[in-house]
């Protein structure tokens, strides 16, 4: 069995080796993330079948939990790691020729650090360690948002940083409160003793944690950084932020609520929050004329849908939410990658200026179309399965309030359909104004997009590829006793 | 009135039909038309002779040229005459179509209508009384019976002559010739 800690160690090690390789040759740097993530993808794919059979708990330093920092590689962890490293790999390939602004090795280093952070978040079993990885993710993403050093980027990074710092401070306060109550930092340990604590204090700690992770997860009132950061970052980073970073926030929220606190009472509120996020995201996206900002708001909406599905809290609901994570990660990464290169070729972010690109950049436009169709939830793409499952899960709980919720969610889908279809029409059916000497992309740009398109279609047509894994992951989130059992042994 | 004679009907139904069903195109060329309304309404009732006014030349076979013919009207007259189905009969009404009448020296009226279209009969006077129209109709019956009302045949055969006269007056006409221009009888 491969040691899962390699998943964190490899990108970390490669990240810091980039400047060293830079001494040898300037050109090597951009290939390093690809190599690192290839290794990661390989490891995670090897791990999947093993983990599904038996979850692994890796203790650092040889002590047994709860007395050490440990990695818990359950189905959820391995699923998210696979997702993170796959999306990361594709974006890394894309970035090989997309990132031109010097100093590129810093970009690649930060990028790998971001991946490290994300991987660490989903794998760690220690709550403070979670915070540390969270900070790694956040700091590298602040820096990456400002990577282009232009007016918008720095402004967005500044705002992102302020909100993010407040958020991580809240996380830390929550952790401090937890530690004060239980005297341990191991999540399984906390979870096993959570009933012994004063519920009010417990809830205050949960509130701080939800708020803190909620900022990264971009739940409604906490998501003001997202449109700015996503729209101003380099497109590869937007793809990563949208595809991975906010998912880790969602993971944090879910882990806190389901596993640690077992806070059933708040789930309906969380679902409502998700719904609100969905609505506000889609409404705000509707009037956008900036393609990346539109995609960013759409991300908010989709995150709302994920949170909504997780809030349903049945095994099917969580399954649907996780499926939505996959389909959204694939589709949104694809959309940002495609849009990024279109913007690069055209030189403008406004939707109107993308008119007529269907003729000039057929593959990119096609990729964009598939991505948006999948997001809207049209068969036979991946988004359809997740949307169907979410609706099914929401109706299946047979609570009247969820019926109302699902109707509103479906209406939000119509709004989403409205603006995405408009963009697709813009690409294909409108006369372009100054797109005469625009040419199709090639090489490293097009490969990840093609892979994403194929995987969207394949998952849409044959969802069984991932349903097993997702079922296991959903089981892990809902079955907290199982989780405690893996980590602490016995019980 | 041999309208009820069955024998004649069997012998020459077409001739009888043309005789007793004279439909006049309701075309007002000049002052003479003022005599037509009394003719077709209750006072004189032309319908008892089978004469009724129709609105379009396509349905008519009797053409009353009522009064002076100015150049502009002549053009319309020619056009209308050419639209009428064969057999068709023309009657000049009043002295103006015959010789110009009181407009004999006008620069803008024609003096001899029969130079431009064939005319089967004339009613003289200025104005002729409505009764004169009935006399004309009965005369026309006789002429049709005897095969003398052949204006439409003449127009076909001497089309070149008529057309030349028309074009002398108007220059080139807008419409193509109705019949072939070569003269059959030289």
């Amino acid at each position, binding site marked *: 069995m491969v040691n899962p800690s390699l998943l964190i160690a490899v990108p970390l090690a490669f990240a810091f080796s980039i400047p060293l390789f830079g001494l040898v040759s300037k050109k090597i740097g951009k290939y390093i993330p690809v190599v690192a993530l290839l290794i990661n993808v390989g490891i995670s794919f090897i791990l999947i079948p093993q983990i599904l059979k038996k979850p692994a708990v890796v203790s650092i330093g040889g002590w047994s939990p709860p007395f050490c920092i440990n990695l818990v590689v359950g189905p959820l962890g391995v699923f998210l790691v696979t997702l993170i490293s796959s999306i990361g790999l594709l974006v890394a390939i894309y970035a090989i020729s997309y990132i031109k602004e010097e100093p590129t090795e810093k970009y690649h280093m930060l990028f790998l650090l971001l991946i490290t952070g994300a991987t660490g978040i989903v794998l760690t079993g220690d709550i403070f360690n979670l915070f540390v990885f969270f900070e790694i993710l956040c700091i590298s993403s602040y820096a990456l948002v400002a990577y282009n050093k232009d007016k918008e980027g720095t402004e967005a990074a500044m705002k992102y940083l302020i909100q993010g710092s407040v958020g991580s401070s809240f996380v830390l306060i929550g952790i401090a409160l937890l530690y004060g109550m239980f005297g341990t930092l191991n999540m399984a340990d906390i979870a096993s003793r959570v009933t012994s604590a004063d519920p009010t204090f417990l809830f205050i700690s949960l509130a701080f944690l939800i708020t803190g992770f909620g900022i990264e997860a971009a739940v409604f009132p906490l998501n003001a950084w997202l449109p700015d950061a996503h729209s101003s970052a380099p497109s590869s980073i937007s793809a990563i932020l949208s595809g991975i970073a906010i998912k880790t926030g969602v993971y944090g929220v879910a882990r806190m609520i389901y596993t640690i606190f077992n806070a059933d009472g708040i789930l309906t509120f969380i679902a409502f929050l998700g719904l609100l996020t969905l609505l506000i995201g889609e409404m705000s996206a509707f009037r956008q004329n900036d393609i990346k900002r539109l995609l960013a708001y759409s991300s908010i909406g989709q995150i709302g849908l994920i949170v909504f599905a997780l809030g349903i809290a049945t095994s099917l609901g969580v399954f649907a939410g996780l499926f939505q994570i996959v389909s959204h990660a694939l589709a949104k990464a694809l959309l940002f990658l495609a849009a990024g290169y279109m913007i690069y070729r055209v030189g403008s972010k406004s939707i109107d200026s993308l008119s007529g690109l269907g003729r000039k950049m057929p593959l990119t436009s096609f990729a964009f179309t598939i991505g948006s169709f999948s997001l809207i939830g049209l068969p036979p793409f991946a988004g359809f399965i997740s949307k169907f499952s979410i609706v099914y899960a929401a109706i299946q709980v047979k609570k009247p309030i969820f019926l109302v919720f699902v109707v509103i969610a479906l209406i939000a889908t119509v709004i989403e359909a409205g603006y995405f279809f408009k963009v697709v029409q813009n690409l294909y059916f409108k006369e372009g104004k100054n797109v005469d000497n625009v040419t199709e992309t090639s090489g490293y740009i097009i490969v990840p997009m093609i892979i994403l398109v194929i995987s969207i279609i394949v998952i849409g047509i044959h969802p069984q590829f991932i349903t097993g894994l997702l079922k296991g992951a959903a089981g892990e989130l809902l079955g907290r006793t199982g989780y405690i059992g893996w980590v602490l042994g016995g019980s | 009135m041999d309208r009820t004679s069955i024998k004649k009907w069997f012998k020459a139904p077409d001739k009888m039909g043309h005789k007793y069903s004279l439909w006049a195109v309701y075309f007002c060329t000049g002052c003479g038309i003022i005599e037509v309304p009394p003719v077709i309404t209750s006072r004189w009732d032309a319908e008892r002779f089978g004469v009724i006014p129709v*609105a379009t030349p396509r349905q008519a076979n009797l053409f009353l040229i009522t009064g002076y013919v100015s150049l502009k009207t002549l053009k319309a007259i020619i056009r209308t005459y050419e639209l009428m189905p064969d057999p068709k009969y023309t009657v000049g009404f009043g002295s103006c179509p015959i010789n110009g009448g009181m407009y004999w020296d006008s620069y803008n009226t024609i003096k001899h209508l029969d130079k431009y279209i064939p005319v089967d009969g004339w009613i003289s006077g200025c104005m002729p009384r409505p009764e004169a129209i009935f006399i004309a109709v009965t005369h026309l019956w006789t002429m049709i019976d005897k095969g003398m009302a052949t204006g439409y045949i003449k127009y076909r055969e001497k089309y070149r002559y008529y057309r030349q006269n028309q074009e002398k007056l108007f220059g080139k006409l807008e419409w193509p010739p109705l019949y072939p221009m070569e003269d059959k009888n030289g």
Partner: protein
Amino acid sequence: MVIKAVWIIVLPIIAFIIGVFFLGLSRKVIARIHRRYGPPIYQPVIDLIKLMNQKSISHGRLFDMGVILSLAGSIVLVLFIPFGGIAPLSGSGDFLVVLYLMLLAPLGVALSGGEGANPNISIGISRKMMLSLGYEVPLLFSILAVMTYYKTTSLVEITKAQQHLSWGVIYLPLPAIAYFMILPAMLGIRPFDIVSAPQEISSGPSVEYGGRYLALMTVEHAFHTFIVLALFVDLFLGGGNPFTFFVKMLVVFLLGLFIHAVFPRFRIDQAIKYCWKWPSILALAGLVIAYVVA
């Protein structure tokens, strides 16, 4: 079977005779109302013979075919409408078929006139269409009232139900009145002769017709008169044997003619408004009553 075959041949001839008779009669009657002497009653026959012998013009194949279709439609229609209880083809189609077959005649004229390529024709046909839209509203109401009342769509059945003086007009007076009010419009006589309106649009659809075309159109008009009157008699006046049937038709026709003789012409929008107002209200009331009663 043989009798039926004989009737199939004889009935159109009867209809033709009656129709042409009505045409001549109308000219004579109107003349007498105008205090004129009027033409002989067989004047339409003379006109027909003349028209057949005129060398008319044709605008094309459709110009010919439309006229033929129009007349053929009318002749076929005669076979579906019981004349004194005789309707040789009534087993092949009911009242709904009759309603639709009534479209063939105007359609033929419209097609043929369309190829005539004259705006007067187009205006005439457009008026015809609008007028028929106008009078169809009360007509359909009253027809539906009859069908609802007698619970059948078969004309023969409707006529049969009215034997022994239990005429439709007694049970359904309002639809009958409404039908009579729009009768002039259906016959195309004043005050509804907007379609042909010789003074305005040079007799409308027939502006390019001369000779044999006009002859066929005249015959068609004769048939049409017959059909409209026969329908009225069948629906409201209880049919009867051929003779009484003819008498009833004559009475209805004369009543219509009196209106024709003294009235001026409506403008088209006035005509539509008229049709949609009083006859429609009456017929609708009749329909409601029939719906409730039946």
